[in-house]
């Protein structure tokens, strides 16, 4: 049952395996144990993380794309028979790496509440109305310039049980793959001027204020379509890599 090693270890002609290496951001992501966000208490590791060098499994990753997508996936306002309630918005931006290079052909997945702040999910008990014409799910694949574009409805705020009178600011969940296992990112996009942002323990779990503000989309009048929809721009920046690193 033990695999034959010799069969599968072909390296390039040079005989040396040269792999890209991805930057390791320190202090960017929220600490896994975060006092303000109660659910972290029993769910975060207490032992220090072990450094994992970037080798073949880490510098490659699933290249999921067009085969998973149908055209209506990126327009959340046309997935049902009628038009959903609420403020129509366009959310677009580029997926880049930290050297400014676009990440093309990569899957972007989103999920969100409807205009009333209600998720279409069996576990959701918030007494706000469901919208029969809104599912809150989207998928898109970035173009050659790394651009994605969704048409959706402005999500609502909703209460949650973290502390007394806790309300989540309006947000859209985003899931991204990039091109490598190291670049995998799940995050949330927020809206400018939301009065709940300073009160939200999840948003404020990001330690650096500038990094936190990068989770907030920009309202863009140029993207806004007259008589039709407000436009928001939000770029997502994944970890960059060194082109050639000899380890």
């Amino acid at each position, binding site marked *: 049952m033990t695999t034959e090693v010799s069969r599968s270890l072909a390296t390039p002609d040079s005989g040396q395996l040269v792999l890209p290496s991805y930057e390791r951001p320190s202090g960017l992501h929220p600490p896994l144990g975060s006092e303000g966000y109660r659910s972290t208490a029993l769910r975060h590791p207490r032992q220090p993380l072990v450094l994992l060098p970037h080798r073949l*499994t880490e510098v490659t990753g699933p290249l999921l794309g067009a085969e998973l997508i149908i055209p209506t996936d990126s327009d959340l306002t046309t997935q049902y028979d009628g038009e959903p309630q609420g403020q129509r918005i366009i959310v677009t931006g580029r997926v880049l790496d930290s050297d400014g290079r676009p990440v093309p052909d990569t899957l972007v997945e989103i999920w969100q509440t409807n205009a009333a702040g209600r998720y279409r999910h069996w576990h959701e008990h918030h007494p706000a109305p469901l919208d029969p014409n809104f599912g809150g799910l989207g998928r898109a694949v970035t173009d050659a310039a790394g651009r994605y574009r969704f048409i959706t409805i402005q999500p609502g705020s909703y209460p949650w049980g973290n502390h007394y009178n806790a309300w989540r600011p309006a947000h859209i969940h985003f899931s991204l793959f990039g091109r490598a296992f190291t670049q995998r990112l799940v995050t949330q996009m927020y809206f400018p001027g939301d009065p709940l942002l300073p009160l939200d323990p999840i948003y404020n779990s990001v330690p650096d204020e500038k990094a936190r503000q990068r989770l907030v989309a920009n309202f863009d009048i140029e993207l806004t379509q007259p008589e039709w929809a407000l436009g928001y721009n939000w770029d997502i920046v994944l970890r960059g890599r060194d082109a050639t690193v000899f380890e």
Partner: protein
Amino acid sequence: MAGLTPSQTVGPYFAMRLPWDDGPFVVPEGSPGAVTIIGRLYDGAGNIIPDGLIETWQADPDGRFAHPDDPRGPTGGGYRTFRGFARCPTLPDGSYRIVTLKPGPLPTPDGSIEAPHLDVSVFARGLLDRVVTRMYFPDERAANAADPVLSCIDEPRRAGLVAVPEPEGHLRFDIHLQGERETVFFDV
């Protein structure tokens, strides 16, 4: 350098979007050589986590990746239905199940050989960033002993990274986010 986008929790409602029907199947069920991996996700009190998401990424049985950054060039193409990636939400009993093929060993830039393994990401409400671990195979005793990652980890924690054979030929890989049996997680 542009500023990186920070992580936020996947929350409890990812199940609306992220799972898809054949997500847990790296290869279709019943494929020749298919291995079923089962396990449960636990919190620091030993309770099961019924709202987590497990994702795995791995080489094919030849130790190859269909990916432009694998410098060994295109794969042989012998595993057309194999996509290397699986995604499975945990069920109300905290369990997940993935069907895959056992990956081959991998060369490294420094000449050592990595034993067959899966990179495993865990997402959940209460996790502000994913956590990453690795699953190794119990029938690779010699390769595991020489693996440059596994050999850096002391017992008894090291044993937690090796799947356990189950009577029906399945492999069990339980993940403990915290507590006495806390799984080894990696900084990637």
